[in-house]
């Protein structure tokens, strides 16, 4: 079991000694028992840190955000940033290292194990509690999840309440870390690609229908993009204007910004947006599932990522975020790569 007091103590020590410029971790949120990401900069606040199944966020995102923030500072604080990482967060960190977006010295990783369990899916909990508010959600024994409702303790089987991504996860403990809390229990999900395979078993027409219904709902709020630690480009293909503008940029250069995708949430544009997003994440997505969690319309975004994840594994034997030294999926090749699809 992760002893949160150990994490708090280490966070406190790091802050007191000035070894880090802050600790990104989970603290209790304002509404119900749901944790929120927080940047702790005062040692005494380290006591607020929590680790429970509501710690759904991928904190690698905040490493990216903080890095960008520091880059804007005239006198950047060069000290590393400490960050609590779960298995998927740590794999995201690995991809960021692989892509040299961050250096290893820039982060102190407080690795927390998911305790042979995972984080919960808010929708599933809400459904199970019939709208009642959970007061507290914590890890139980054997991967079970304990939910306290109106001071009544209820125990749920992980299958009932865990996020799908956790039920399909093989890395429920950090793969890169400076400190490790909890146990390394290797999980073997029975069918990590079952949902992908199910969709594949549909006829083309049915698949098309499925995705049309999904894509039609997209509001283009870009929460899926914004929450993704891999979407750290300065300028996105869907941005209508260029962020690479300096005072010296000429009007002609500005006119060169290509509008690949219209801003309107037209079905076709939503499709292209999500396709580009998926392709850009090929070999980079660590399936933290945040994109799908944050989607206000509940679009099955993971099904796209998961498909490419499976193809990367099946065709190229590649798993994202496991080796920060290896070349990326698409910046390397094997002579023996499949080509039976080529005429």
């Amino acid at each position: 079991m992760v002893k949160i007091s150990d994490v708090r103590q280490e966070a406190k020590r790091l802050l007191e000694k000035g070894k880090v410029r802050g600790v990104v971790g989970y603290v209790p949120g304002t509404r119900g028992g749901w944790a929120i990401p927080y940047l702790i900069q005062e040692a005494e606040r380290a006591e607020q840190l929590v680790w429970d199944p509501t710690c759904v966020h991928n904190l690698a995102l905040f490493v990216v955000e903080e890095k960008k923030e520091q880059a804007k500072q005239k006198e950047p604080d060069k000290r590393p940033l400490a960050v609590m990482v779960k298995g998927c967060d740590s794999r995201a960190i690995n991809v960021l290292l692989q892509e040299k977006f961050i250096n290893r010295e820039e982060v102190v990783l407080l690795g927390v194990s998911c305790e042979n369990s995972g984080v919960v899916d808010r929708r599933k909990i809400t459904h199970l509690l019939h709208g009642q508010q959970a007061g507290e959600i914590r890890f139980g024994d054997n991967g079970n999840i304990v939910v306290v409702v109106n001071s009544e303790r209820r125990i749920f089987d992980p299958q009932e309440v865990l996020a799908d991504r956790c039920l399909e996860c093989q890395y429920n403990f950090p793969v890169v870390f400076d400190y490790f809390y909890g146990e390394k229990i290797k999980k073997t999900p029975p069918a990590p690609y079952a949902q992908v395979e199910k969709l594949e078993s549909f006829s083309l027409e049915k698949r098309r229908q499925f995705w049309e219904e999904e894509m039609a709902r997209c509001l283009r709020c870009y929460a899926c993009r914004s929450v993704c630690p891999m979407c750290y480009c300065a300028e996105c293909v869907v941005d209508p204007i260029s962020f690479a503008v300096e005072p010296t940029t000429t009007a002609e250069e500005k006119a060169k910004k290509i509008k690949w995708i219209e801003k309107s949430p037209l079905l076709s544009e939503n499709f292209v947006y999500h396709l580009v997003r998926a392709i850009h994440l090929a070999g980079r997505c660590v399936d933290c599932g945040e994109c799908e969690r944050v989607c206000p319309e509940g679009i099955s975004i993971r099904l796209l990522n998961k498909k490419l994840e499976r193809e990367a594994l099946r065709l190229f034997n590649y798993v994202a975020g496991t080796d920060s030294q290896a070349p990326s999926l698409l910046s390397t090749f094997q002579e023996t790569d499949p080509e039976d699809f080529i005429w």
Partner: protein
Amino acid sequence: MRKKIGVFVCHCGINIAGTVDVKTVAKELSQYPGIEYAVDYVYMCSDPGQNMIIEKIMEKKLDGVVVACCSPNLHESTFRRAAQSAGLNPFECEIANIREQCSWVHKDKEKATEKAIKITEGVVEKIRWNERLQPIKVPVTKRALIIGGGIAGIQTALDLANSDIEVVLVEKNPSIGGHMIQLSETFPTLDCSQCILTPKMVEVSKHPKVKLYTYSEVQEVSGYVGNFQAKILQKPRYVDPDKCTLCDECSQVCPVVVPNEFDLGLTGRKAVYIPFPQAIPATYTLDIEACPGVLPIACGKCWDVCEPKAINFDMQPEVIEEKVGAVVVATGYDLYDKKNMAEYGYGKYPDVLDGLQFERLLSASGPTRGKILRPSDHMEPKEIVFIQCAGSRDPELHNKYCSRICCMYTAKHAKLYKHHVHDGQAYVFYIDIRAGGKGYEEFVNRSMEEEGVLYLRGKVSKVFEENGKLVVWGVDTLAGQDIEIRADMVVLAMAIRPSSGAEKLAKLLKVAQDSDGFFAEAHPKLRPVESLTAGVFLAGVAQAPKDIPDTVSQAGGAAIKVVSILSQPELLHSPLVARVNKSLCTGCGMCVEVCPFSAISLHEDKAEVNEVLCEGCGTCAATCLRAAIEVKNLTHLQIYDMLGVYLGGLR
């Protein structure tokens, strides 16, 4: 400002006009937004056609010209020259291919015309964003680095030096000469190898344009075509060549004996030695590995006896930097390692020799002064077996390729053996006889017919010793019977392998190797002496097994390729290269990983393109997740606009 574009539609006689309604193409284009002028003409590439383009550029003040005609592979340069003569930048002229990709492949005139219009409109959209570019000028260091001092390196060096190009010749051994200097006679004329090589060795060493580094190795090469910087490590030889008088006193007092590499271990040498009498530079070398110690206290006998005080124990390794404009790899070969040939008793029985050892036996300067004697008992072998393809043409166990020289030198060996041992019998086991060179076939036939050498087609399965004889078990596949020969000596025509340092050198020069480890040529037929790395050339066996005449020819070829680069005041490189948008680059280095030419590197977390190395393939552009790198004049925007036109009219 919007470009003023002119469109010139060629009839190409009826080649285009027969299928494409060129008048309609010109008319449609004249109404296309931003088109200043559009016209058709019977032969645009003719002088009147070109003159019309030139006149219209000036008259209409055009700053973009699209010629709709044949494939750009044919007349792009013609029309760009014409545009240039009217004051345009060559990149303000583009070709729309409406012949090979349109009129010649379609029959339906209406559809072909429609397609020709689209193609031309697309090129108009492309040219709108074309930048005026100038060829990238690269200064040239008029010097060449040649790695390897065998016949390939020597010949290249001489050809270059005689073309007034300074040469830096690096040889890792104490003397130049390579394997050729070890040979006795050369096929098919049987002239003495040393006699024909030593004049060249002397010439190269005395040539004012040649700087020779022996006992040296290339450690590092940076830069690019025209501008390489090489770091050369010169190993200390502890003997000052200028003072050494070759009196041999040192060698006589030296207490250490080690196998002599030059004789392939058939003789010994001292720790301080001269590899062979004609060595160049003509000096002794102290083999520090073998020497009991450079401290006088340990031995120092040589130092004591050396009157001119040429021996200097304080010599240090030295790293020398040389700037050169081109590099020639002439690193030659090594024989296939002994340990791989256990079935023939090679390395186990002293009388199983490899081809090079046999050359030494045959050589007048060799261990036996040219007499053929068995290393074991110094008896003349009366029965001798030559085994060809030892380690070659055997994809399962050894090397899959043919080592190419063995058929000929085995024929030579057998012939020379008969010259020495008139009453001896020579057998040759072979798979095929490959004697494709000038005079080669005749040479082999003479060995068989005049010398009575017995050629047996088949493989040898085993060689073992029994009662002082080497028993050779083989099979004659022509007669279909097993053969046992009780021989006095066995000579293996061992496969040749790329020189042991080839892999390291390939990495250091960023030159590709083929699957056998030989340096890969840029094109197997059309660019056999160039590597895929601009400014790095190949000569001799380093590229593939070959004999002396081929090596000399290739050396000459490599030399002229070097001259063609270094004779120019500056190199011109295509400006269609990748460019980084630094504000978008995040320094992930994926472009660095995919660039086939190592043209991209990271500096301060941003990608940087070396425009001289970049070939403009654009693999980086498709790899970059942030569209932070693209190739000039074929940008994402240009592709997007072309797509827009080609697919336009979603109405």
